[in-house]
């Protein structure tokens, strides 16, 4: 194929006016300061580029350039030259909203923190003045100044709580924000009345400090959600795959898959992954459907063969007509299973929600009982109400609001450093509960790339020669040979014969790399197939010297050790694969996994997970294939490697990076530790209440005690959260 495709990214380009254009790219593999400088310098060097700025938090690049000659595709090519895969990215509405919300919370936090500091500056003299010699007129002046700061600040910074409480009350519900709002408003109102009556105590400091601590918790929680949404957004950008479409009989153009209509004809070159479902109308090749079915043996494709999105084309070019009816295809079937499974999972209730559901009624009843109790005991209504408000302030869930978000923030940072990205906010809690792991085989326990397994059997000079020859082929198996030989310079004059192999002439001798029949090595290949039936064979010949390369997916380097470590932690392991029995049996034996099943369909995987669930197991699914997506959604918690099919990646709760399987274990360890610390934090918060509430009910709480108790418990909870950073070595 010599046709050159044009690429059309105009869909993603924004016009900034005054001759400037803007595009956002999601970039894979940006993880360090070095990458950041390399990318920015590399892109800024292009003529007409006016801005190239990497966002390391989101793993995105913002680019601006002068309108005119520069084609956005050139930017993506440049990034590819620098070694980074980039995809045009369109910010979702939801993400814009989250970012706006996060900035609003930070503004509220800034205002509340400012007010707390300044009110404290005024409160400390009053507290010490009350026991020494402060004049009443000075105390009143300080109280009025506190009111001047605290009232407008609380009106602004309290908005997130007031709004949420109001919307809960309007539908006759109660959430955590109802007692918070009532507590803050009553405390401020009471303090104002007390100040007007020249009273000794005012609670302006406690009310505004409460808002500050709660806003810290809110902001951390929001930030975490924003982070996971950014990861999810990037994964969705990767999903925006492209296809090569025939715009006329001879002319092709690369377009986003979203722009492909049923009935269109697309070109599938060797080594390309198919992005659509369709039927082959022309060409002959082999396709690898392992991502869809888990089956590692290649399927021949010719006119009339059905191909599915996710299939990898191996040897020849194919023309594919996109299926008119998306219904009934494998992908549609998987999507349907996925929807059902996702619906079931959304019922999970987070620890924080469970805690707050109990909390609000208890707080209100306690405050009410305190007021009534004091009146019955003969106290004045004024004194009884002041005591009731003190109870409300003391019980406000300040430490409770920090208990969980701080741990989540610390734990997600630790997981990130271990190579795990969170795709769902509540994944940590669910992951910590997992006690049984179902693994997929292909691409999950094995590495996604093909590797040469018998490199030692081949003379080094011939190996490197074969590698250089392999550079001229598009066939994925040949690429594995080229990579194994670390070949850099292709041989001059190498010719690829589609579906056969490559040949070249070197010093008058013809060398060939390809099918055994192409190299005259059928006999050798037949013998080899008996030894290792799962491997793909590629032959190499130079005159009478003939060698075979066995190419296959290898197990992840640390898979066996990780499986053993999981067993040590009392976690059950099991393998469900769509691949053939001999391959699955061999992998299970090598890894020491006792339970395995081969040739499993997506529906059977779900059935097995449901069966485990009925036995009371909390199932974690680790898988990468399109066929795994529904079972990933059906499981209690799920994880995918970054190389997974995009559908699976965006369904999984967590995504792990790199070759080793170790991040799976690290994620479980961190999650378990995090859940442990979260529970501990909740206990600390409750213990604080158990100590302080009797004091408040007895009417002994002064503003000083309220402030000390509140900040003390909050700081304790935050410090304890830091323990989630590391897990003990075992």
């Amino acid at each position, binding site marked *: 194929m010599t046709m050159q495709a044009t690429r059309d990214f105009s869909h993603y380009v924004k016009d900034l006016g005054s001759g400037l254009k803007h595009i956002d790219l999601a970039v894979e593999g940006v993880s*360090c*300061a070095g990458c*950041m*400088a390399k990318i920015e*310098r590399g892109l800024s060097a292009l003529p007409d580029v006016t801005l190239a700025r*990497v*966002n*390391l*938090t*989101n793993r995105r690049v913002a680019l601006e350039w002068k309108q005119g000659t520069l084609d956005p595709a050139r930017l993506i090519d440049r990034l590819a030259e620098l070694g980074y895969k980039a995809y045009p990215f369109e910010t979702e509405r939801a993400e814009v909203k989250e970012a706006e919300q996060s*900035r609003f919370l*930070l*503004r509220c936090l*800034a*205002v509340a923190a*400012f007010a707390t*500091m*300044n009110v404290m*500056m*005024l409160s400390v003299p009053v507290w010490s003045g009350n026991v020494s010699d402060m004049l009443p007129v*000075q105390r009143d*002046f*300080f109280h009025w*100044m506190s009111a001047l*700061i605290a009232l407008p600040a609380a009106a602004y910074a309290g908005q997130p709580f007031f709004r949420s409480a109001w919307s809960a009350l309007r539908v006759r519900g109660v959430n955590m924000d109802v007692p918070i709002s009532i507590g803050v408003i009553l405390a401020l109102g009471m303090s104002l009345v007390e100040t007007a009556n020249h009273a000794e105590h005012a609670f302006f400091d406690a009310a505004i400090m409460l808002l500050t601590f709660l806003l810290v918790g809110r902001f951390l929680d929001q930030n975490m959600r924003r982070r996971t949404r950014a990861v999810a957004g990037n994964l969705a950008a990767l999903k925006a795959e492209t296809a090569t479409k025939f715009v006329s009989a001879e002319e092709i153009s690369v377009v986003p898959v979203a722009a492909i209509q049923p009935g269109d004809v697309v070109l599938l070159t060797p080594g390309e992954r198919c992005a659509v479902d369709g039927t082959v109308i022309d060409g002959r090749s082999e396709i690898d459907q392992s991502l869809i079915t888990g089956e590692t043996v290649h399927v021949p494709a010719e006119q009339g063969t059905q191909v599915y999105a996710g299939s990898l084309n191996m040897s020849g070019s194919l023309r594919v007509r996109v299926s008119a009816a998306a219904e009934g295809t494998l992908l549609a079937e998987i999507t349907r299973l996925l929807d059902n499974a996702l619906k079931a999972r959304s019922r999970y209730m987070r620890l924080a929600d469970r805690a707050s559901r109990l909390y609000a009624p208890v707080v209100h009843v306690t405050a009410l009982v305190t007021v009534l109790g004091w009146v019955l005991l003969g106290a004045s209504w004024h004194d009884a109400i002041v005591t009731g408000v003190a109870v409300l302030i003391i019980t406000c869930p300040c430490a409770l609001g920090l208990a969980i978000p701080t741990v989540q923030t610390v734990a997600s940072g630790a997981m990130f450093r271990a190579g795990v990205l969170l795709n769902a906010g509540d994944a940590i809690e669910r992951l910590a509960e997992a006690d049984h792991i179902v693994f997929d085989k292909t691409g999950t326990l094995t590495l996604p790339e093909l590797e040469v397994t018998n490199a030692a059997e081949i003379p080094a000079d011939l190996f490197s020669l074969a590698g250089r020859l392999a550079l001229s082929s598009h066939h994925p198996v040949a690429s594995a040979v080229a990579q194994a030989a670390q070949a850099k310079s292709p041989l001059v004059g190498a010719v690829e014969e589609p579906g056969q192999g490559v040949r070249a002439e070197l010093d008058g001798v013809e060398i060939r790399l390809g099918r055994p029949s192409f190299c005259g090595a059928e006999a050798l290949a037949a013998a080899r197939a008996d030894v290792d039936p799962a491997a793909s064979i590629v032959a190499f010949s130079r005159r009478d010297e003939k060698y075979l390369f066995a190419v296959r997916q290898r197990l992840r380097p640390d898979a066996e050790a990780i499986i053993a470590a999981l067993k040590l932690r009392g976690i059950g392991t099991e393998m469900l694969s769509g691949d053939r029995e001999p391959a699955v049996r061999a992998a299970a034996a090598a890894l020491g996994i006792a339970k395995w099943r081969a040739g499993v369909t997506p529906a059977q995987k779900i059935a097995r997970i449901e069966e485990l669930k009925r036995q009371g197991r909390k199932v974690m699914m680790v898988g990468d294939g399109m066929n795994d997506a529904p079972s990933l959604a059906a499981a209690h918690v799920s994880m995918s490697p970054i190389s997974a099919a995009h559908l699976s990646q965006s369904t999984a709760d967590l995504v792990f990076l790199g070759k080793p399987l170790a991040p799976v274990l690290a994620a479980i360890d961190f999650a378990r530790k995090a859940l442990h610390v979260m529970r501990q934090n909740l206990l600390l918060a409750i213990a604080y209440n158990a100590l302080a509430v009797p004091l408040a009910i007895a009417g002994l709480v002064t503003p000083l005690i309220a402030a000390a108790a509140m900040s003390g418990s909050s700081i304790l909870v935050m410090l304890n959260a830091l323990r989630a950073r590391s897990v003990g070595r075992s």
Partner: protein
Amino acid sequence: MEVLVILVPLALVLGLAGLAAFLWSLRSGQYEDLDGAAWRAISDDD
């Protein structure tokens, strides 16, 4: 102690100046990429 009538509002004004500076830095997007900013501070170029 009448000096308090001047000093307390003065302290407040200074605090407000700090708040205004923070809100300005927030508006100008300085908190959009904290991970990157940590590294930019110690990089040699620019």
